[in-house]
């Protein structure tokens, strides 16, 4: 194992990634792109009551399906969108200060963060009630 070669490669990768970050600046994709992406992710659902974060980088949406109500979560990381669906029986932890944090037991998407206005925050918390780990939530809030 040549550590000099390894370190040199790592530095080159970091420089290249930095250049790419400058050449292709991140764009906020916005509400419609998040809704479209979630619809693609959960094509059988009828979407209703979408709540978008102030920075338009995350979204909570009620997803109505034949098998019952679900809750869609969408988050932009980098310039990519990541979707998850909460179904009956799922238990997430929420904490709300200025931002609502939804912590999922999901190794690959552990947290969704929503910066919301006061009204939207209340609505979002209400939507999350059926999926909330109440004990933890009470502690967190």
């Amino acid at each position, binding site marked *: 194992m040549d550590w000099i070669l390894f370190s040199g490669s790592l530095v080159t990768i970091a420089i290249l*990634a930095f250049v790419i970050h400058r050449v292709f600046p991140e764009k906020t994709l916005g509400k419609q792109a998040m809704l479209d992406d979630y619809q693609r992710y959960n094509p059988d659902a009828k979407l209703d009551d979408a709540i978008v974060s102030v920075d338009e980088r995350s979204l909570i949406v009620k997803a109505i399906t034949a098998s019952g109500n679900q809750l869609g979560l969408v988050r932009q990381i980098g310039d*990519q969108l990541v979707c998850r669906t909460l179904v009956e029986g799922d238990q997430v932890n929420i904490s709300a200060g200025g931002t609502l944090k939804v912590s999922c037991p999901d190794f690959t998407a552990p947290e969704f963060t929503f910066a919301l206005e006061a009204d939207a925050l209340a609505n979002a918390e209400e939507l999350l009630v059926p999926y909330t780990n109440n004990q933890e939530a009470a502690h967190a809030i």
Partner: protein
Amino acid sequence: MQSEALASLGLFKPTEMAVPLFVALIIIELIYGKVSGKARFEGKDTFVSMFMGLGSTVAGALAATFTVVLAYWVWENFAIFDFGYAPWVFLVAFVLDDLAYYWIHRMGHRMRWMWAAHVIHHSSQHYNLSTALRQTWTGSITPGIFFKWPIFILGIEPGIVFFCAGLNLIYQFWIHTEAIDKMPRWFEYALNTPSHHRVHHANNPQYLDANYAGVFMFWDRMFGSFIPEQKDEPCNYGLVTDLGTFNPLRVAFHEWVGIVKDIASAKTWKARLMFLIGPPGWTPDGSRMTSEMIRDAWEKRQSTKQQAAE
């Protein structure tokens, strides 16, 4: 160890020699993408892809002793013929290695144990030359290592096969791009191209589990896994359930963690086994979806739409 095996044959390790070329081509694609809008990059995504590539070379070096010693043991003890080192042996080895690659790759999508290693390569939502470098760290702890044994048993020295595998990987680098639309018709028919491989990386239901070829496209045509890219169905890249993290460790090991959790919570031995060797998405109660289930659901939606239109 692999380098030593190749050096003993007077050969070099092709992928190591090609690294400067890879970096140069990524820079060219980056500039072309900025100017033409035909290629898209994201800094963190590129960093993860290239870091995974670097990690893969480290993991490969660590595992090489085991895989190379095993390969030479098979060849020395079970080879039926001794083909030597004539140029035609290299040609035959290249074709046979490509066939083995096809089946390793196909099983890499159809068996969760092998998918746990291969999923890394598909975990980017981007499709550019840096995606080609997003390689596994755990390939050598899957049954994939056995697929090349028949070539050793036939009588081709493992060093030649490793050399051909390196050339195969180099070929596959340039097909990870949106900057090239279609190649000439004869080329698209015979060889793997950006268009064919875009379909392979797409998570659109109609494109799932297709185009496993490394170099020669006729394996897919022969074994029924070929799907052409459709103009009216643009590829959407990534996983069926995309990763919500750029953490390289989570990228490298997430499916392994998933397997361990599933096996630990399984109630029967059949379920434990299926979580390992069944297709990705398999569950005893059907609560998750395999690629067949996703495709079936898509076909059902299409036919419902068609009926509604009529």
